[in-house]
């Protein structure tokens, strides 16, 4: 279906339409690089597929520059990109930079300064491309002086999805009120979330339905579970920046951190206690499986990445719950929303990524053309529909996006209006090393081998050790 959708989009819009009124400029600017093959590597997400299957073809037709985009798994993408940049081998002309890894890449000087590159090559500056058109998400890909090192190609928030059809059932409402003494509704508090999860697990079983009360992105051998905890559950309990004291780079309470503090322990207890109400595949689920489980109708509610929210709500070929998806902000602990609104906290993860050019690229000029092509306003609405992502301010008001927004219960509107409550990952250059230290403890807590308290005590000690080893603690 996705391929069909992409094919339809590709055939519906000729390249001149796709490139707006700038087709001639791209033709001319691309002429010196005709025949060049640009290699890219990115995570295999719906927006990445659109770039590879639609935009790359349009770009090649216009310029004669071929774009070979290797959309692969998250782990493989990092493995390939980082090895290439470390070895300076120049295999890839552009790489996907996830928001959380950008500090690592900038710290290691992997990336070309795009602002500087375009300023030094005025002939390569495409008309119709303005950095001012982007949402504030582009700020994550700027250095201290405001220069851009990555062109955002996807951005979304992690939202609370729920099954409207289940929540609106009269028999479910009556049974819930009888059991809990208050009305059934999508969760706005953690107690309510837990009650909903418990209730629907029992209700579905009674009705003979293959569904459970909640999703849990709880893979016990994949970082996805650590991410769900650190970037969604913990912030909604008021634990920010992984509980790391940003001045001293300590995470244990006894050293001034928060990772094994009360909020963190409450968050991990809440999350692990949801497991009995999650589909059996929860402990082997990453973000992809959570999206698939929800789309298959196997969960009544859950934290789901926005990149999946749009297709779950609208693509009947892939989703069994089209027309029945509700979208809301996730529940938060008292005070968290106020902190987020004032910029002193956040309620979850503003996720996404950009395409950047490694210093090792052998085709930097041609790649700059490609990145500007990707950034054209004309592509953004179709890309948003195909991938549930929005990187340009103007995309929200596009009629096509508004139509999909209605089908998706206002997901795009929610993202526009409440995106400021979310935040990207903390600016840790040691992101991967730090997360890798925490992973086994989260896995053990999910598997029941450790209590949440033991796990967080161990996790903060391991994280502190890594930060000490790397020289961040004075």
């Amino acid at each position, binding site marked *: 279906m996705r391929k069909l959708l992409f094919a339809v989009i590709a055939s519906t819009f000729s390249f001149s339409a796709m490139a707006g009124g700038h087709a001639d400029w791209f033709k001319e600017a691309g002429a010196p690089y005709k025949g060049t093959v640009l290699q890219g590597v990115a995570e295999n997400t719906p927006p990445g597929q659109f770039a590879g299957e639609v935009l790359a073809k349009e770009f090649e037709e216009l310029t004669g520059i071929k774009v070979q985009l290797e959309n692969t798994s998250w782990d493989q993408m990092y493995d390939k990109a980082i090895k290439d940049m470390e070895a300076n081998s120049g295999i890839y002309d552009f790489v996907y930079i996830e928001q959380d890894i950008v500090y690592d890449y900038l710290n*290691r000087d992997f990336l070309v300064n795009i602002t500087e590159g375009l300023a030094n090559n005025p002939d390569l500056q495409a008309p119709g491309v303005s950095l001012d058109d982007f949402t504030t998400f582009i700020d994550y890909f700027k250095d201290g002086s405001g220069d851009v090192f990555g062109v955002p190609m996807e951005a979304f928030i992690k939202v609370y999805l729920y099954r409207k059809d289940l929540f609106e059932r009269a028999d479910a409402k009556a049974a819930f009120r009888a059991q809990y003494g208050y009305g059934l509704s999508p969760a706005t508090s953690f107690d309510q979330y837990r009650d909903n999860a418990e209730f629907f697990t029992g209700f579905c079983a009674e009705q003979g339905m293959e569904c459970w009360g909640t999703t849990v992105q*709880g893979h016990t051998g994949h970082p996805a579970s650590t991410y769900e905890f650190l970037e969604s559950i913990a912030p909604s309990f008021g634990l920010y920046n992984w509980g790391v004291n940003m001045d001293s780079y300590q995470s244990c309470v006894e050293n001034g951190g928060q990772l094994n503090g009360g909020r963190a322990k409450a968050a991990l207890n809440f999350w692990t206690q949801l497991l009995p109400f999650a589909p059996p595949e929860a402990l082997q689920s990453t973000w992809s499986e959570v999206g698939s*489980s929800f789309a298959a109708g196997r969960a009544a509610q859950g934290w789901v990445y926005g990149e999946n929210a749009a297709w779950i709500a609208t693509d009947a070929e892939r989703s069994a719950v089209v027309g029945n998806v509700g979208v809301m902000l996730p529940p938060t602990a008292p005070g968290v929303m106020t902190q987020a609104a004032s910029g002193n906290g956040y309620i979850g993860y503003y996720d996404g990524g950009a395409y950047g050019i490694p210093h090792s690229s052998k085709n930097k000029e041609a790649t700059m053309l490609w990145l500007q092509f990707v950034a054209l306003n004309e592509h953004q609405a179709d890309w948003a529909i195909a991938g549930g992502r929005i990187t340009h301010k103007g995309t929200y008001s596009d009629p096509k996006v508004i139509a999909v927004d209605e089908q998706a219960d206002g997901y795009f509107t929610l993202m526009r209006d409440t995106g400021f409550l979310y935040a990207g990952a903390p600016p840790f250059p040691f992101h*991967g*090393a730090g997360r*890798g230290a925490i992973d086994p403890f989260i896995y*053990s807590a999910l598997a029941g081998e450790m209590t949440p308290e033991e796990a967080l005590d161990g996790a903060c000690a391991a994280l502190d050790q890594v930060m000490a*080893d*790397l*020289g961040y603690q004075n």
Partner: protein
Amino acid sequence: MLSKNKTGWLLLSPTIIILVLVGLVPFFYVLYVGFFKWNPLAVDPSMQFEGFGFNYRRLIFDQVFLESIWRSIKFAFVTLFFELTLGFLLALSLLSSFPLKSFFRGVHTLPLVIAPIVVGSIFKLFTVQGLGPLPHILKDYFGYTLNYGLNADQAFWMIVIMDIWHWTPFVTLTLLAGLSALPQDPYESAKIDGANNFQIFFYITIPMMIPVLIVVIFIRLMDSLKIVDEIWMLTGGGPGYATRFTGIHIWKEVFEKRFYGLGSAMSILYLYITIVICWILYSVMASRGKDED
């Protein structure tokens, strides 16, 4: 003579150059890096020499690393035992004729041609909770809950079963080749002397098969000790540390956490342990072979 030698060295030189480039140079580089404190994510990303024993001293007290070695050794010997036993039985059965023997041999060999990462995927699809058929069958017909995302023992044994499924055909085929090549005279003499099948197997077949067994054991032992792909796909090393074998542990330290110096030291230490294990095993088996002679 000298000219003959020159020609020989000339012909061998491409092989020698390739071996040096892809074998010795990386090995000595890893050995060299293992003496440094080096992580490009650090405040000081340069290589810092802190004494030859810096990383190795740390590893001696690294509980997670030591446990991963113990786990890997346990895995290697458990799988070796089952693969050898099953492989020998299958090889013996394939010596005799039975209906559909060729078909069975073909099907039995299929796992060998599948890439390890694909084997991991197959097992994942087959066994994943909620979606794979095996947990359903075990639950519905035997009341047994299979959830290796939760249960550490199940995760370990699932990987053992996967490895047995993947590699027993290799053992079977190699032993079958060895069995087929055994001389028949000792068997005929033994039968004339009144030996039973049990005695023939333990006193004639096994001793004569020792050279083949040594080869099989070495190959399988070394392969098992460096297993990564299948585990990566099936459990990712979890739950917790349950299936974090040394190969996975080194990968995570080097490529996730970027501890290049420490990871290199781990690799060298693990190589040393592997060589020691193989050497001990070889000594035992070789002396056993001599005794039998």
